[in-house]
Every structure is written in C-alpha cells, then in structure tokens.
C-alpha cells in the first residue's frame, strides 16, 4: 500500500504514468465515471480549505465514488484531544482512501504510519502540498507538451511559498530546466533550496527583483500570493503585497506562448484584466487539479481501467 506525502515520493517514471492517466481521463471522462463505485474517500481537513477539499471531492464523485469527512478541527474529535493516530485508525474503518490536511507539519506522515488505507497529504502547514505540485506539472505538460527544456519564472513570495519549493524540487528532476526567481529581497528563496536543490543539482537559475526585465525570456510564469499570515507586522505585508502586479502592460512584454500559472487564491497580484488573455491558464489549472487527483486516487487504490 502506498501513501503520498511529498511529490518526490514518486519516481519520474511513476509520476509520468499518473500524468498520462490524468490526460486519458481528460480525454475520455465517461470511461472513468463509475470505476470507483462502492469506494469511499474520507476528506479529513483540520483547517479550512475550499479549493483542495472540493477538488478531492469532485475527483472522487467523477469516479463514481462517495465522500465523507470533516472540514475543520472544531467539528472533529481533535477538539476533544484525539490524536492523529487514533483518528486515522477510526477513519480506516470507514473509508477506502483518505486525504488529510493539517496545520501541523508531518501530521499526514503520522497518519500514514497508523493507517490501513492510503493517505494523501492534502497540505501540512508550510511543509508539503504534493497534489498542488502534481496539478502544476500536469498543467505544464498538458499545455506546453513537455516538462523539460523550459525557462520558468517563479514570482512573488518565494520564501514562505510551499508550492514554489515543491515545484522547484519536482521540476529539477527534468532535463534542461532554468529557473528565474523573481522576488523582493525580503522574500527570496530560502538558502536550503538554493544549496540543496539548485546548486547541488547544478540547475541553472538567477535571482532578480524586477519582473519586467525577465518577461521576454520566460516559457512559464508562476505567480504566487504574498500571504498575510506569514508577516509579523501589517506594514511589511502591505508593502510586499503590492510589489508585483501582473497586468496587461507587463503581459505585452511576454512571448506569445508564455503561460501564466497561479496556485490560487489570488488577491491582487494578477490584475483581473489579465484573465481574458489566452496565456492566463490559472483557471484551467483548477480543472487539471481534478484530473490529477482522479488519477492519483485510481493509482493509490490500484484500480486500472482498460
């Protein structure tokens, strides 16, 4: 039995198989509409999340399965002091697979150690969010046709943004990838990502402050939100949140086939006027998130469709 804790749990080949399966689901959703009939997905979310939980539930429903669960710690036994280990032992009796989000880092790993059903990490604090990374990879592969030979701009909060860290880890396994890291000085990529991933694997990268300067060289621009909860004082947050705003003017500098991705929710870092631009694919990315989770559920349940 396999669990998913980090996007690197899968080899590149295994990940390719999941992405291929997701593309098949996208092409023929009707073939997969009942393959999980009689199966149940438990979504156990100890903190609120709209997108991820709905995406998991939609994925299971699209496969003909059922869902159950809770969406905040207050409405679970955690409020009574139940441990993660005990909760997952109980959930294992009710469901066939489980997606867990928890504010504490490593909680899904603890669950996986005591579970008799596959556990998917649906986000643990600032640590990992593997299904977002698989979604990002699927979006890139589907719309660009490849995961290698790309120049990828990552823009915004590169210090605290876990989606950015996971994406760098995952993409650094592909051939000829160049990163352009665009952030204010205060929100630069952490030293350990630079040393242990980029430098260790001899990945090409550069760090810049101005987005305009690098727009023409990018194949992809991955925008991120500056998160209010990461700042100790409001003044710093207000200064940082408006540091990058992607608008029509900046999009004019980009290549015609450059894509804009964003893990969402956005605040004001992408102006709504950009939504109409065909290169803005962040809402398509949400749809790919459902296909990616469908492929993942099938893979972890060991269900194959001829």
């Amino acid at each position: 039995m396999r669990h998913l804790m980090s996007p690197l749990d899968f080899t590149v080949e295994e990940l390719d198989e999941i992405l291929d399966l997701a593309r098949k689901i996208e092409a023929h959703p009707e073939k997969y509409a009942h393959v999980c009939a009689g199966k149940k997905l438990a979504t156990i979310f100890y903190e609120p999340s709209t997108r991820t939980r709905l995406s998991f539930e939609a994925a299971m429903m699209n496969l003909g399965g059922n869902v159950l669960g809770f969406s905040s710690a207050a409405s679970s036994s955690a409020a009574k002091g139940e441990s993660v280990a005990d909760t997952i032992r109980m959930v294992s009796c009710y469901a066939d697979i489980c997606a867990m989000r928890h504010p504490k880092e490593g909680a899904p790993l603890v669950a996986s150690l005591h579970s008799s059903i596959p556990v998917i990490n649906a986000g643990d604090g600032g640590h990992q969010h593997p299904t977002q990374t698989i979604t990002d990879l699927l979006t890139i592969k589907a719309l660009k046709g490849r995961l290698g030979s790309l120049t990828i701009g990552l823009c915004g909060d590169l210090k605290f943004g876990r989606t950015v860290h996971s994406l760098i880890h995952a993409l650094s396994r592909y051939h000829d990838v160049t990163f352009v890291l665009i952030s204010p000085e205060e929100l630069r990529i952490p030293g350990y990502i630079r040393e242990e991933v980029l430098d260790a694997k001899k990945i090409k990268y550069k760090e810049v402050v101005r987005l305009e300067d690098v727009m023409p060289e990018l194949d992809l621009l991955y925008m991120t939100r500056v998160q209010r909860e990461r700042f100790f004082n409001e003044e710093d947050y207000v200064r940082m949140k408006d540091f990058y705003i992607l608008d029509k003017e900046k999009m004019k500098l980009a290549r015609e086939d450059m894509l804009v991705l964003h893990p969402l929710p956005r605040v004001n870092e992408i102006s709504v006027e950009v939504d109409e631009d065909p290169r803005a694919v962040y809402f398509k990315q949400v749809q790919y998130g459902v296909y990616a989770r469908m492929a993942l559920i099938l893979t972890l349940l060991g269900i194959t469709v001829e």
Partner: protein
Amino acid sequence: MLNVGKLNEGFVLDHIQAGKAMSIYRDLKLDKLDCCVAIIKNARSEVMEKKDIIKVECDIETLDLDILGFIDCDITVNIIKDGEIVEKKELNLPDTIENVIKCKNPRCITSIEQELKHVFILTDKERKIYRCKYCEEKYGEKR
C-alpha cells in the same frame, strides 16, 4: 588524581569535553541501567587540559553507543573485557536518532502530540545534517 577502580567488563568513554558527562549520561539513558556507573568530571588531560570520563560496568551488548557519534565523534570508546581493553570503538554518525534531541519547529506535529517519538534522520552525511522525520526541519537551525 582521584582513582576509580578498574572495570572487569564494560566501557570507558574517554576524552569527553569537560562538563558534558552529565548530558551524555542522560542521552545514553545510563540512569535506567542497574549497574555501576562512574562519572569523573574535570580530569586532567595533556591534550584537552580538562576532560570528563564515564565508566560503565555492564555487559558490552547492553548499550547502544551509536548516539555518541552524533554527540561528539572525538570521544574515545574503550571496550573492556576481563579487565583489559579489547577494542577501541570507532564512532560513526547514526542513521536515525530517536528521543534524544527534540524538534524545535513550533509548526511540527511533535509540538502538539506529546506521545510521538522525536525521530531525526541523517540526510547529509558529509555535512552532518539531521532532519526531523515529520517536518524535515534541520536540527540546530536557528529560527
């Protein structure tokens, strides 16, 4: 110099940094052993000026000394049998460390679940980097 009797079987941990003997006593969980343990603090040393020494009289299979490699690779471990030194044990970094050091990341699951073991995994042997099994926080990283 103070004399502590010769061991028949057990270990002598020599060249411990002066002042560190008590923390090693705790890390090796020597308090749990029902055998004779001698702690010598601030013994004179030609090389170190001052050093601590721990002598443990027990079956040589009883103790797991791997953790010493993490604490201080320069400690000398003499294994004694029949009153003689039969081996000088070479210290290596252990692959995992359980319940010796604690994860200090306030966002780690170990910060709220008291029953969980604190487990660290050696992720980079060359740079002696240990990371928390759960949150992957590097041990000793300043927050």
